């Protein structure tokens, strides 16, 4: 019915969307153009991907703690799935180096590109952002749908690439060429398969496509295209569809975070798309963009390649995306944390403006720091001085943002519900991760820590107990918005505390291992090297903590699915929040708001002195000027 009102409120007949007739199941839940449905589609895909990444990580962690021991429970299954013993991935239930590398590369890729970004940017961005600015939908609903339906094939290709002969991509999530260009050359079984239908050349060509690394690249091209569509949509929506009165400085911080993120995706991703196309050319058309002449691989000089390319070029193009990408992961999470903190401290965010300008500065600066991942490539003093300086400067906005969030807590009346627990745990966890980024930023000491577990520790502290916690907070916070029911608080706490403890047990020892000289991507967890002897025992602690953490996710998954049907029913605004996302009818119809929305005030008017309740929604008209309110009260 609300749909009808929303549609009836305008009379443009040239318009294509007709929501009057009831939608079929397919167009309502599958090929939907409603930003809320698309948001949920993204969220579910992303959560499943996180799960996938988690499982891959556990297999890796088993191997790291118990190198050469057969994988319990699933060893044989994996062996069969990956082509048996002659597939060379898992033999007698024991993981082989190539499979470890594939898991590592895919864990990184899936977590970053299929898990965190789709959940933070695409799912929350899609679901929450239009609601928060009072828009009826995204600016281009069909583009939005197209974005999801380009994302999904990318995701499926990525996961299914485990099944092609030779296994999934195994050159790290960074896919450094020439390793990536020479790995996964056409596999015998694939050629055999295709030569049933095609000429020899055709079969070879198909085999150069159907292998782990090429599929990784193709999947990335899908994912990049999808996120380009998404980011155009997000920016246009934020700029054009803000409700009446929703001026820039009245936008909730989350909207700002998503806006900046969208710009990062928009401008940083295309060079990687270009690079991906070039690497695909290297693999399929035998060009050599990233390969110098005279490579000697597999017992022969690669004469079929012309050479003349540069391995550094790939690294530049990859990290030109790669660094902005980390803020793409971070910013939505910070946005969520800010929303949850404002709501659960019952007071306005402290330093809203510094948060906004800090994020914009972060966004701009993130384009000129990428080479801090490349200090070890033989960078000269001048250019490294430049990148060291920008990298140190970029830590300042992060400090400002984190400090503002911390100070926001002061003077509040803090409700420790599950979303809030995750949100405030984010602060020190991100603090540790961010602070350990500082030594990495200096090339001279970074060269000691480069590629060691210290780096792994650094970024996992930012992405796992940092960003993932932010996203958990978001899931718990907006769950009632989506389903009309709250998730169970007890199960939530049962999820939070063990996860927090395990996270630290997993990642804190990494700093020690890294300082002791242990390096990443070691299939045997460092057993080959004598220098890892004194810290090797940590591997076992970390692995078991990871397993326990998996058990700790079960309450979450249980909670997530059961609360849908028998969670505590709540009203439209269970958290007594001020932002517009909580002011729609429930369930929010296609078109979101019952009527035109007007915004009268900033986003976080909690505990306004003299107001009758401790929150004043953004769209609540100022019937009585404040002075009079006071008089009335007095």
């Amino acid at each position, binding site marked *: 019915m609300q749909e009808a009102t929303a549609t009836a409120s305008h009379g443009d007949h040239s318009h294509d969307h007709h929501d009057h007739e009831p939608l079929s199941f397919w167009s309502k839940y599958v090929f939907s153009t409603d930003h809320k449905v698309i948001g949920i589609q993204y969220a579910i895909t992303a959560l499943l991907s996180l799960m996938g990444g988690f499982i891959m990580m556990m297999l890796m962690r088993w191997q790291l703690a118990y190198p050469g021991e057969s994988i319990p429970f699933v060893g044989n299954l994996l062996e069969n799935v990956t082509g048996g013993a002659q597939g060379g991935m898992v033999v007698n239930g024991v993981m082989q180096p190539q499979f470890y*590398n594939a898991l590592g590369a895919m864990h990184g890729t899936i977590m970053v590109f299929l898990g965190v970004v789709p959940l933070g940017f695409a799912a929350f961005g899609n679901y929450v952002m239009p609601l928060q600015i009072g828009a009826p939908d995204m600016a281009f609903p069909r583009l939005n749908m197209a974005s999801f339906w380009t994302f999904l094939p990318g995701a499926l290709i990525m996961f299914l690439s485990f099944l092609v002969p030779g296994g999934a991509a195994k050159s790290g999530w960074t896919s450094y060429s020439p390793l990536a260009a020479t790995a996964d050359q056409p596999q015998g079984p694939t050629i055999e398969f295709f030569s049933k239908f095609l000429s020899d050349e055709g079969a070879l060509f198909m085999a150069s496509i159907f292998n782990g690394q090429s599929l990784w690249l193709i999947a990335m091209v899908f994912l990049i295209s999808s996120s380009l569509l998404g980011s155009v949509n997000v920016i246009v929506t934020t700029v054009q569809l803000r409700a009446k009165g929703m001026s820039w400085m009245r936008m909730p911080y989350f909207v700002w975070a998503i806006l900046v993120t969208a710009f990062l995706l928009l401008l940083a991703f295309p060079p990687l798309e270009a690079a991906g196309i070039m690497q695909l050319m290297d693999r399929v058309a035998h060009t050599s963009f990233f390969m110098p002449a005279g490579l*000697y691989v597999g017992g022969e000089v690669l004469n079929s390649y012309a050479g003349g390319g540069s391995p550094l070029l790939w690294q530049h193009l990859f990290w030109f995306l790669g660094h902005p990408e980390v803020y793409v992961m971070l910013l939505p999470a910070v946005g969520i944390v800010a929303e949850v903190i404002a709501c659960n401290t019952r007071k306005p965010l402290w330093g809203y403006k510094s948060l906004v300008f800090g994020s914009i500065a972060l966004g701009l600066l993130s384009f000129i720091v990428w080479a801090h991942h490349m200090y070890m490539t033989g960078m000269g003093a001048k250019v490294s001085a430049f990148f060291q300086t920008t990298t140190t400067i970029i830590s300042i906005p992060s400090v400002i943002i984190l400090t503002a969030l911390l100070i926001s807590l002061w003077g509040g009346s803090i409700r420790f519900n599950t979303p809030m627990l995750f949100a405030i745990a984010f602060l020190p966890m991100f603090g540790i991760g961010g602070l350990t980024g500082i030594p990495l930023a200096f090339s*001279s000491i970074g060269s000691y820590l480069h590629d060691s577990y210290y780096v792994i520790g650094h970024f996992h502290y930012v992405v796992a107990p940092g960003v993932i916690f932010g996203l958990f907070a978001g899931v718990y916070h907006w769950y009632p918005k989506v389903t009309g029911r709250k998730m169970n608080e007890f199960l939530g706490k049962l999820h939070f505390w063990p996860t927090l403890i395990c996270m630290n047990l997993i990642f804190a020892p990494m700093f020690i291992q890294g300082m002791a000289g242990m390096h990443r991507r070691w299939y045997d967890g460092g057993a080959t090297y004598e220098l890892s002897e004194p810290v090797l025992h940590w591997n076992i602690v970390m692995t078991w903590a990871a397993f326990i953490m998996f058990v700790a996710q079960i309450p979450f998954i249980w909670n997530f699915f059961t609360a849908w049907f028998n969670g505590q029913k709540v009203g439209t605004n269970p958290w007594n929040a001020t932002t517009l996302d909580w002011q729609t009818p429930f369930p929010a119809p296609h078109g979101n708001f019952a009527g035109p929305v007007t915004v009268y005030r900033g986003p976080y008017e909690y505990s*306004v002195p003299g107001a009758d309740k401790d929150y004043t929604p953004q769209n609540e008209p100022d019937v009585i000027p404040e002075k009079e309110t006071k008089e009335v009260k007095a």
Partner: protein
Amino acid sequence: MLNNLLQITQNASEHGTQIDFFLEAAHWFMLVLFVGWTTFFLYTIYRFWQRRSPKADYNGVQNHASSHIEIYVILIEAVLLLGFAFPLWAKQVNKIPPEGENVLKVHAIAYQFGWFFHYPGEDGVLGRKNPIFISGGDPKSQVGLDRSDPFAADDIVTLTVMRAPVNTPVIVDVTSRDVIHNYAVAHMRVSQDAIPGMRVPIWFTPIRTGEFEIICAQLCGAGHYSMKGILNIQTQAEFQAWAESQAPKKPQAVEPEAPADPPTEPEVTPVEAEGSAVAISSTSGS
């Protein structure tokens, strides 16, 4: 102190002391920030728990202490940058000691999965190498040494083990013959990508003898985890003896400054001065 707490490897190179100091300073800086913020954080969430603070304060913190702290953070970071980071790196990449006198020059060639080390030999000049000469067999063919190059005749190529005399600056030209690797010696505080098609010099001065592990610090394929090299830092006498044992026999006159070691021509001539100088004879020969 913090370094040791984090179980850093024991330093074995001259510039490593500065690196360690810098690491220590950076970690203290981080620790102070972390403890400061965490204290504030814990106190705040304790004090403003809804049970203790039922009514929120609309205005919150009113002073600008945080801006001051942020300015200090900026200042300290500037000091770290200007005082440590720039000079240290500039020294590493720009102040490479001139080749020849008192300096050992080695060419490290990474491959899947191991290391070759190419020494210039007595003449102090590395023989020409070219991928087209690569063939299986002995290390010299493996790195594609051009046997027709006169400079190549006395060159030494070793597999896996790199030897260097203590207290002598070592320049390592790092490259790779297939994919990207990384020449990292944690104890020496050095790390350099081995990139095919490029040759990048790094240098360090070992101050302790012993065997150190050379780590491949860049994913390079299935054998990455076990692509270990050994950096064997020997006393000068030991190193010299080894170099001599490797040198090809040549019917040439013994050099004047050579020690009394008749059977082979000396590769290395130690000039013990302050324990830091060793001359790799580069004036004669060639």
